[in-house]
């Protein structure tokens, strides 16, 4: 019995296999309609999330299974002070697999240590969110046909953005990856991550503050939100925020086959005018989240 807590729990071979299954689901949906018949997914969302919970639920329904669970801690026994371990032992009586989101970092690891059924981390605070990373990898694979030999720009909040850290870790296991880090000084990728990247032979990285200047060399542009609360003073935020908003004008010099990704939800970091550009992948990316979660649940339930 396996759980998925962080993206590095999966080998690149397993990630490649998941992508193959997800792409087969997309090509042959009928073949998967009853794969999870009689199986139950428990969605334990100790904090609200629209996209991730709906995507897990849609994934299980499309595999022919059922879903039970809660969407916020106030509607669970946690509100009465129950521990994660006790909640998990109880849910084990009713479900075959668990998707869990929790505001505290490490809660899904605690859950997996006590669980008799697979636990999928659906986000633990600012820490891990492996199914988002799998979604990003499937999207890159579907858009580019490969996960190697790519120049990938990460723009915005590279300091606190958990999706950025996970995707960088996942991509840095493939060959020919060039990473361009685009952020203000306040939101640079943490030093320990830069040191890790610097020690790898198969990855190179550069840093810049200028999004517009970096865009022409990119195959992938991964946008994140620059949040006001991350700055020490409002003047710096106001001075910098527009620099990291993607507009059609900034895309003038971009490659015709650039793929623009965003983990969503978006606030204002990508102008809505970009949405109609065929290079904008973020809504296709949200759809891919369902397919990769279908593939993941099949793998963890050991269903061929």
């Amino acid at each position, binding site marked *: 019995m396996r759980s998925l807590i962080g993206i590095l729990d999966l080998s690149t071979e397993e990630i490649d296999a998941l992508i193959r299954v997800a792409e087969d689901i997309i090509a042959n949906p009928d073949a998967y309609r009853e794969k999870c018949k009689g199986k139950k997914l428990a969605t334990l969302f100790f904090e609200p999330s629209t996209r991730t919970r709906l995507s897990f639920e849609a994934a299980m329904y499309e595999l022919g299974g059922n879903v039970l669970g809660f969407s916020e801690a106030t509607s669970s026994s946690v509100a009465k002070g129950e*521990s994660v371990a006790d909640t998990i032992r109880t849910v084990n009586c009713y479900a075959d697999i668990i998707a869990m989101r929790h*505001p505290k*970092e*490490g809660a899904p690891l*605690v859950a997996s240590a006590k669980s008799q059924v697979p636990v999928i981390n659906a986000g*633990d605070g600012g*820490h891990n969110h492996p199914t988002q990373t799998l979604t990003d990898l499937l999207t890159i694979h579907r858009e580019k046909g490969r996960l190697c030999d790519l120049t990938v720009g990460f723009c915005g909040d590279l300091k606190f953005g958990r999706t950025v850290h996970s995707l960088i870790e996942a991509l840095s296991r493939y060959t020919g990856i060039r990473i361009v880090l685009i952020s203000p000084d306040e939101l640079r990728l943490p030093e320990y991550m830069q040191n890790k990247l610097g020690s790898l032979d198969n990855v190179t990285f550069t840093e810049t503050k200028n999004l517009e200047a970096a865009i022409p060399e990119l195959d992938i542009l991964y946008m994140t939100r620059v949040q006001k609360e991350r700055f020490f003073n409002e003047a710096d935020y106001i001075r910098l925020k527009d620099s990291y908003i993607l507009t059609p004008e900034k895309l003038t010099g971009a490659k015709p086959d650039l793929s623009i990704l965003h983990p969503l939800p978006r606030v204002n970091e990508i102008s809505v005018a970009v949405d109609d550009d065929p290079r904008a992948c973020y809504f296709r990316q949200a759809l891919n989240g369902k397919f990769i979660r279908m593939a993941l649940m099949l793998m963890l339930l050991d269903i061929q």
Partner: protein
Amino acid sequence: MLVNPIKNGIVLDHITAGRGMELYRILKLNELSCPIAIITNACSLKMDRKDIIKIDGNVPLDLDIIGYVDPGVTVSTIEDGDVSQRIHLKLPEQITGVIRCKNPRCITSVEQELPHTFRLDDPENRVYRCIYCESKAK
């Protein structure tokens, strides 16, 4: 200065000078009833100065704690006046119950009964990270 040899017991040697009392406290050696000698600033060819702790009795010691506090320590077990076992400690791969995670967002901050466990992430810089939230130990 003369400290008698022990017949059955444990000698912690090559303790970094000045760390002997810290180890004494952390290992709660004050709770033992057997004789214990702490020698500080002893001359050492290898280290110039070192501390030594001699425990006249075979008591269980948490080697991971000693390795975390001072990874260069040598632990010798004495039986019938001879060294029966000598262990050169190094930084332990994992430690539990020695340090606490201070990240307020960590699950250990709300679930009090969880053990505080850290894994060695960077031996060169002696960096340990919480197994739950991966925060660096401070």
